[in-house]
């Protein structure tokens, strides 16, 4: 029996939970990754990203719940599940005493499928044949990352699982690799990637999951998420009294420095614009929203309204003022 690569979901996790010595590292996490999509998996260190990936690869056993890749349970039927995977092994895991080429050959032998995309990847990542003949111990961090990416994707797997894929790559190669991911995505491959580079995730991914302290706090299509972006609005009130901005819908933080104001607004910004239109305003700036802001929204400490966002904005505002 082979895995169902035509399944609607490349990855499914159902109430996936993992505890280590009584500490819950991953708590009841459920999400689905559509076949043929690019899915971003975000969270700070210790949030549960790596634990999730290890569960998907069958490196660790779930305490409860399950995960499946193309319909195959990743723990009980792990070998079949992993037939469809190309996983980005940490670059330092490769063997320093062996040449890059021999390690790619070794990886291809284990994949039991020809390295159809090796040449293409080497070109995209700007790794030369001469580089491949050198021992890995002489590679820079970026070169090791390029080799690891090639080893992960050279056999053209239906699903790529990439943990911090562009870590250590220079910006040009990073963009080349993003283009490569888009190309293979258009050819029907599924990409599951975790990254600290939110801008990169924003550029590439169609859907995003955010984990915090082992729990899934957001699971949305990128365009839906972007509609809930946090905007930063700064302005100076020339004269006259001002209303209590905190009462305006969508405003979730307010900071004032003399006549200058800094507001964070989530979602629809129109109610604030309406209020501001009745005031004498100078220097109105609405910052371009980013995924970074959304990310911060999910990471502000529980029990506070403003928390990290206000602190971050205050620092930014003070520096700007």
């Amino acid at each position: 029996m082979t895995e169902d690569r035509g399944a609607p979901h490349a990855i499914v996790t159902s109430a996936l939970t993992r505890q280590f010595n009584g500490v819950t590292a991953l708590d009841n996490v459920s999400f689905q990754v559509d076949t043929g999509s690019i899915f971003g998996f975000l969270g700070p260190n210790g949030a549960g990203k790596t634990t999730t990936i290890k569960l998907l690869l069958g490196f660790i056993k779930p305490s409860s719940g399950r995960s499946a890749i193309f319909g195959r349970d990743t723990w009980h039927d792990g070998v079949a599940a992993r037939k469809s995977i190309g996983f980005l092994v940490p670059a330092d895991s490769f063997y320093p005493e062996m040449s890059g080429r021999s390690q790619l050959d070794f990886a291809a032998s284990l994949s039991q499928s020809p390295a159809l995309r090796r040449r293409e990847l080497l070109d995209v990542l700007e790794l030369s044949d001469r580089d491949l003949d050198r021992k890995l111990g002489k590679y820079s961090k970026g070169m090791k990352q390029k080799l690891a990416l090639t080893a992960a994707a050279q056999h053209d797997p239906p699903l790529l699982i990439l943990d911090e894929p562009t870590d250590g790559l220079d910006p040009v190669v990073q963009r080349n690799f993003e283009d490569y991911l888009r190309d293979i995505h258009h050819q029907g491959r599924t990409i599951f990637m975790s990254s600290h580079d939110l801008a990169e995730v924003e550029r590439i991914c169609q859907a995003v999951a955010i984990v915090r302290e082992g729990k899934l706090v957001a699971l949305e299509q990128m365009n839906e998420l972007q509609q809930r972006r946090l905007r930063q609005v700064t302005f100076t009130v020339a004269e006259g009294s001002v209303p209590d901005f905190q009462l305006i819908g969508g405003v979730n933080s307010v900071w004032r420095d003399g006549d200058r104001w800094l507001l964070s607004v989530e979602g629809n910004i129109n109610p604030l614009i309406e209020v501001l239109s009745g005031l004498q305003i100078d220097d109105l700036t609405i910052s371009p929203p980013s995924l970074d802001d959304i990310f911060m929204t999910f990471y502000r400490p529980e029990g506070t309204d403003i928390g990290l966002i206000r602190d971050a904005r205050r620092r930014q505002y003070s520096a700007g003022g």
Partner: protein
Amino acid sequence: MQVVAVLLIWQFRRSLTGLVALLLGIFLFELIQPVAIASVGDLDRLQGILDLVPPSFLALLNVTPEFLGGAGLAGYLSLGFSHPVYHLLAGATVIWFACRGLAGEVERGSIQIALSRAVSRRSVYFSRLIGVVIVGAVVAVIGPLGMIVGIAIGEPAGSIRMEYLFIQGIASALLLWAIGGAGLLISASASRMGQAIGWSIGLLVVSYVIDYFADLWGALEPIKPFSLFDYYDPPAAMTRGEITGESVLVMGTVALVGALSGLVVFSRRDLP
């Protein structure tokens, strides 16, 4: 099976330098035994020297002066296979190989290269197990080979039946497979290579010390059967071509139980 072969060949490729160095050490150590004996002169002079050696030192070699006096060249040469340096070199080779392949790869993360693909943990483990069996066999053979070369070079007085060197090779292989089985079990459960090697060498030393002190102090005699070295008898192999059925059974069982337990542990454990 193809994957197991790929993993096995890769393991040997990346361990080649270390293995060659250790094997060369064992080969040379055994080579110098007959050369050293020849340099003393006839066996009576050698016996005279050994008579001066305190019994506690001879216990390290697991022999008595009386035995050596009656055993001739084969008896003296058997010391080369019961010497602590031989145990250290041979044991370290097998333990290093067993611990490098599992605990070492878990520590470095290299194990993920295989296990993130359609490769089962069982396949990875079997490749390591076959590797340990091969390394144990090669280490067991390289010692007698070195001794044969040493005999040809040194031409010591006395005679030895070459087929008994083959029997000694089997005795060494049994001991090393037992050590390798235990080493694999420890390696399968450890997450750091140093930790695995430390525990394995520690067990080997404890086993040796039990055997040593049991020879010196009668009070420790009851625990001697718990030492692997109680079932390893180079003088018997070299002078009589003998390995007891009990030795085969005990060392074979330790090797098998260690290897199978390692498989169970490795199949179920978390990979950090």
